[in-house]
């Protein structure tokens, strides 16, 4: 049955979320929303990890394939760090420029 939630369905969900994230980065001007979109992409990647981890029958080394879980866990740490640092930078920029519009970040170009 094609409607059973199998590998394809989970991956497609991840892909759709990922691409929505890409579109968010492309289209939004507000740095915070751009940042949220990136979080969406990271989440999508996590979903892929967990999906594969689950759907993989087992690992030849004899242990259940948990690498995906580990990776997802680590990537949450990474995301947390990035968010913390990124929001700090956004705050500083707002303090200096009174805007967080990414299109106004064009002192550096050419």
């Amino acid at each position, binding site marked *: *049955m094609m*409607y*059973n*939630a199998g*590998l*394809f*369905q*989970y*991956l*497609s969900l991840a*892909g*759709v*979320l*990922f*691409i*929505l*994230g*890409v*579109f*968010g980065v*492309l*289209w939004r*001007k*507000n740095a*915070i*929303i751009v*940042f*949220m*979109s990136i979080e*969406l992409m990271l*989440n999508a990647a*996590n*979903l892929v990890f*967990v999906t594969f*981890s*689950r759907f993989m*029958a*087992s690992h*030849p080394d004899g242990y*259940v394939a948990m690498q995906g*879980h*580990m990776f*997802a*866990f*680590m990537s*949450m*740490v*990474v*995301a*947390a*760090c990035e*968010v*913390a*640092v990124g*929001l*700090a*930078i*956004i*705050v*500083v920029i707002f303090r200096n420029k009174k805007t967080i519009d990414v299109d106004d970040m064009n002192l550096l170009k050419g």
Partner: protein
Amino acid sequence: MISLESYIPALAFLAEAAADAVKTGASEMNFGAGDFFFYLFAVIAVFSAFMVVTAESPISSALFLVVTFFAMAAIYALLSAHFLAVIQVLVYAGAIMVLFLFVIMLLDLRKEELIEKRHWLLGAVGFVVGIALVVLMVASFRLSQNVEVAVKSGTDQEAPDAAKFPAIQESADQIDGSRIEAARFGTTRRVSKHLFREYLFPFEVASLLLLVGIIGVVVISRRRRRRRPPGEVIDEEGAS
């Protein structure tokens, strides 16, 4: 077994409901509860993600992101990733989102945020490129459904090459035990067993990473400070 799902029965329920999906080699399946919940949360996740990208105010974006994260957590639970589901709620929906909302409030951005008007060329190029990415990715994913392999052609009854795929032999045993496996798979116990053995080193590295994040926030968010000669009284405002 003391595990998270003991405390959160919903997680266990979802995991069990979805266990069928992971059955390898299962033939005909009916549309089950796991499928239903998957589609439910998938629709919620996609819809709210879409709203994150298109919502006019950053506040609503942030709130929709919380919804997405919750839906994702549910989907993790469907995948028997109990631990991750909890972490997802705690870290993402809890900590990270609070941070987002906090910053949005701090910056007081409510008024100016309407959906932006961009140069049409940028929009067009972005659209084309993005759509191309969608098509290519979906195409590749679809291939997971459309296997045309000559290697193991024949019917689905044909025994897999066990020498080449040792995993398959084991998986056959797990078909029946998939419900049990679903309950055990991503428990805190199992995750921690791996996390503090094989993944001890990355775990330590992650603490290093967090240290970087902490220093970073301290350095960045500190207001500019004048250099003081030793002994001078610290100016409270300047220190921030």
